[in-house]
């Protein structure tokens, strides 16, 4: 199984396996990470905010307008900010490193 490398809000780094049929948000939530995702993944809140490691940010599909607009409701937004519900995982993201943004 391909893996993700996750840094949680306390700074702890760990590896999780992922299924490429799921989004990044779903994989995080399934693995018990504290990620609110209150809208359930339809890009309508901004509570699944993550930072993507610089090495990976350009390999992801570009953000659409919806996601960029929703990020306006998030805080501590950086150049590598994304909403994890909008990231479809595929095999090629094996080793993707992300950090969960503050609440």
């Amino acid at each position: 199984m391909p893996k993700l490398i996750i840094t949680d809000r306390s700074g702890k780094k760990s590896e999780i396996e992922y299924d490429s049929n799921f989004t990044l948000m779903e994989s995080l939530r399934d693995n018990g990470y504290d990620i609110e995702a209150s809208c359930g993944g339809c890009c309508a809140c901004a509570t699944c905010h993550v930072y993507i490691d610089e090495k990976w940010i350009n390999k992801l599909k570009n953000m659409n307008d919806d996601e960029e607009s929703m990020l306006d409701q998030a805080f501590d937004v950086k150049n590598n900010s994304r909403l994890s519900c909008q990231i479809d995982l595929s095999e090629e993201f094996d080793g993707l490193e992300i950090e969960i943004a503050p609440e």
Partner: protein
Amino acid sequence: MTEKTDVVIIGAGPVGLFAVFELGLLNIKCHLVDNLDKVGGQCAELYPEKPIYDIPSRPVVTGQELTDELIKQINPFKPKFHLNQQVEKIAKTEYGWIVETNIGTKVEAKCIVVAAGAGSFVPRKPPIENIESFENKSVFYAIRDKSIFKNKKLLIAGGGDSALDWTNELSKDSNVTLIHRRKEFRAAPDSVSKMQELETKGKIKFLKGQIKKISKIQDSRIMLEYENDDEKLNIEVDYLLPFFGLKMELGPIAKWGLNLHENLIKVDTEKFETSTPSIFAIGDINWYPGKLKLILSGFHESALMAQEVFKYCFPNKKNIFRYTTSSKELQKKLGV
């Protein structure tokens, strides 16, 4: 003045609305309370234009369409809505319960049905250290009385409709600066062009950045530190008005002594009653083994809850199960 009804439903989302239908068929009258300014809950607030594909017999329906059709469906039962307010307190009475909202509406009812979804929509507060101590003095998340801002220096934060509308409106009588993390806005095109026009004319200022710190300076003035890329800058104003949309939180319900399971209200799967008799919970706010947070499940829960609420409302009557397809009496209630 205290109004009287049979049931107060907390939350006017799809499940709260359908509960009016199921209760109405049993001659039970309802009032609904919701903190939003509109009916429909998350469907209307978060994803009005987005499609839902798992409502039986509706291959696709948007959040707003579903809301509109539910309103139509419950219209024969004439529910009363109390919008823009949150239920704060409940108290037991001989009749049942008195439910009181944060703006003083009081309704007495036999039963309470909590259909509050993921909780009440409240303003999303920026995570700035100590901001609470400035709230309702120098920091406002909603505007009730705009006269206090007259001739003052304001910093409005955000890039959506509220931020832009208030920037345009308050610039008439105040010195307004708008701060947003980027120069694009997700607001109505009209408001965006109006704001840009005001900026060109020098009537408002625009800053790119995100607020990081708040501190007090003399009198009621505040200093805000913000970051644009890696640059740290300061601005001094009288008021900060952050508009970062809404988030959901359980709110006062958590303090009513109901048994909870991780912030969800525990119910039994026969009656959907909580640990407190005559208080029910349906939809995303409840929990029982096997619970799925689907609108579909909430509809089912409404129907079963109504059977039990009937016993509280009409203790001496027998509830005879009937179908809307064949019962003349039910059809009369529906006006068909």
